[in-house]
């Protein structure tokens, strides 16, 4: 189990570390030089974006890389150009409701698949995987027509409701966590007269908090980053736009320079980075659980 904060491969290096040959030092320098270049490569795009966000209108038209003068007011101007706070609110509403709905509907389903033995459970699990792998565009036309007939397009409902009816990826991920809980705990709980529901929230939920956190984070992030869903369902009504949707049309709609576009980009990125900094362990734990062994 790797986390981002843990040092790498201590077991492997322990033996070699004791006595360092000159060759090891050369190797160390080489590896770290490559790694440093790699890190810079990954970080550089964001650095340029932030630098451009601080440039003046005029300078943003040039090929300068470093701001001649700093214009933090660009970030305020973004809010003048578009109702970013409203978009932020919509994104938050979408993500929070979807995450809550996912947890409510998917935890029991994942529990049933992970811990309850019943006929057809394998088939259901295969169905979950098939649904997880389905490109969303395949079923877009009928689902869109369905919501249109209910006159609910232009609202966040079509985006949020499906999460209250089980999310395939989350069920899959949660199941991966749930199967790791030793059976003894459940047996003990059953001795105490717990029914399945009580076992679910007395035993399983407290024991798999990191898993629940990971599944929640992924759903939150997926919905926060979603573009296709909002484009389809709330594109028609600007009052319901999410941040991603607004960002995509920001430059075209407001005829602005790169500096403001990049400032808006930074504003969309910041919540994600903050979320990551607070929860990086859960992220990494979740990801490694999706990388399944056959």
């Amino acid at each position, binding site marked *: 189990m790797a986390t981002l904060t843990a040092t790498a491969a201590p077991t492997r290096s322990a033996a070699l570390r004791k006595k360092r040959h000159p060759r090891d030092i050369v190797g160390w320098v080489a590896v770290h030089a490559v790694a440093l270049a790699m890190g810079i490569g990954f970080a550089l795009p964001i650095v340029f974006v932030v630098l451009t966000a601080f440039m003046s209108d005029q300078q943003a038209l040039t090929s300068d890389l470093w701001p001649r003068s700093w214009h933090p007011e660009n970030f305020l101007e973004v809010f003048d150009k578009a109702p970013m706070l409203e978009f932020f609110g919509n994104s938050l509403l979408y993500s929070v409701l979807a995450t809550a709905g996912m947890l409510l509907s998917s935890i029991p389903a994942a529990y049933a698949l992970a811990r309850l033995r019943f006929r057809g459970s394998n088939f259901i699990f295969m169905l979950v995987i098939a649904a997880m792998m389905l490109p969303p565009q395949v079923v877009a036309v009928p689902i869109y027509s*369905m919501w249109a007939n209910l*006159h609910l*397009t232009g609202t966040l409902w079509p985006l949020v409701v499906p999460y209250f009816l089980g999310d395939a990826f989350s069920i899959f991920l949660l199941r991966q966590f749930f199967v790791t809980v030793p059976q003894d705990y459940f047996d003990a709980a059953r001795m105490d007269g717990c029914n399945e529901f009580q076992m679910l929230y007395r035993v399983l939920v407290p024991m798999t908090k990191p898993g629940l956190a990971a599944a929640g984070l992924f759903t939150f992030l997926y919905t926060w980053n979603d573009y296709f869903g909002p484009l389809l369902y709330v594109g028609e009504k600007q009052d319901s736009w999410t941040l991603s949707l607004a960002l995509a049309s920001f430059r075209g*709609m407001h005829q602005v320079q790169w500096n403001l576009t990049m400032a808006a980009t930074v504003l969309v990125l910041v919540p994600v980075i903050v979320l990551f900094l607070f929860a990086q362990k859960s992220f990494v734990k979740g990801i490694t659980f999706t990388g399944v062994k056959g």
Partner: protein
Amino acid sequence: MRTPRRAALSRAATCSVGALVLLLSACTAGGGGSNGAQEAPSADQKVTLTVYSNFADRELGILNKVLDGFHTAHPNITINSQGSQDDDKITQSIRGGNPPDVAISFSTDNIGQFCSSGAWQDLKPYIDRDKVDLTQIPQAVQDYTQFKGTRCALPMLADDYGLYYNKDLFAAKGITAPPKTMSELLEDTKKLTEFNADGSIKVAGFIPQFGFYANHPQVWAPQFGAKWLDNNGKSDLATDPAWTEMFNFQKQLVDFYGWDKLQKFTAGLGQEYSPDHAFNKGQVAMMYDGEYRTAFLKSDAPNVNYDTAPSPVADDKSNLYGGGYVTGTIIGIPKGVKNAGAAWELIKYLSFDTNALVQLANGLGNVPTTKAALHSSDLKLPAQFNTFLKVFDNPNLANNPASPNGGAYLKTVEDLGSSWQSGTVKDLHAAFAQADKTIDDAKALGGN
């Protein structure tokens, strides 16, 4: 025990089948059934009309001012005007059953779908009832607001195209008059173009790149007298020699620069509607553009010394000179609206009220669509605008035909133009024939 359970099961099954059928068949969203004209609301009946348009910022403000004028005349009708609503959003809102009462579309591309699918209501009952005289509108404009006899839209201002040229750059090269023929355009382009020391373009005389700024085949076509359809309504690219002439001339211009150089140059230029547009910055000396550019130049680059003229025409078609391409903003009543009667009153006001049209034309810098407004003494527009009023009055004013699949055929031709200018297409005639087939096949897709 078995029987009731089975009964319940089969009942559940019927329910789900019923629901399925319901979901599939309930696709006739909202209202419908608008065969007759709906009465305008009586003066004491309070109504709110929602209006969608693709205007934003300053332009939305101008529209709203004119809408206020309507509210003053009809105090019982309040208007909720929403900007930044393009055709996709209008279509989505109609499909979703939450349409605006009045839809304003910036493009005539989708008129075929609007009229044939019933997304926009047929206005004929209203026009007949109120005995509206459509001859106040030029024929080309009447054409682009209807499809196959269904009039589901009316015009609200038009855009026509002409040649913009930078007088200072002209003077520097000793050019005294704007080009009137394509050979003159080529000659002037060569004179006006300047290259940097490394061979890259510094100033372009005229940018011929299809897809860039207003260089779309439909804008070029009237200058060559190129026709889109033959008498049977089939696509006509391969058989009408004007298309071949137009593409060959375009390639001649492209080759003068070299495709790579041209592409590199245009990729670095400012966006079409941004203040750093190449014409504003003196990076291009001549261009085709719509009349609306005068308003942009006035606000973004008041120091550019420019003038306008009708676009040049093919050497052997000098009789076409003075006309040009026209398109425009269209306005209609979507399917399923609640206040169609009131919506019609607003449409009549925005399409035919001389004061409203003049006010809009002055504010937006667009061409007013009725003859009365066109000749109104209240029009206060820059001197360069006169070209566009004259082009609009010229019998050679031309539009592109409405199609049941919208602007798809324009994309087909523009795509062909892209491959042509980059040199990918070698056999132009074969490519035109292929495009003809594509266009005709695609039209069949939406039919019954």
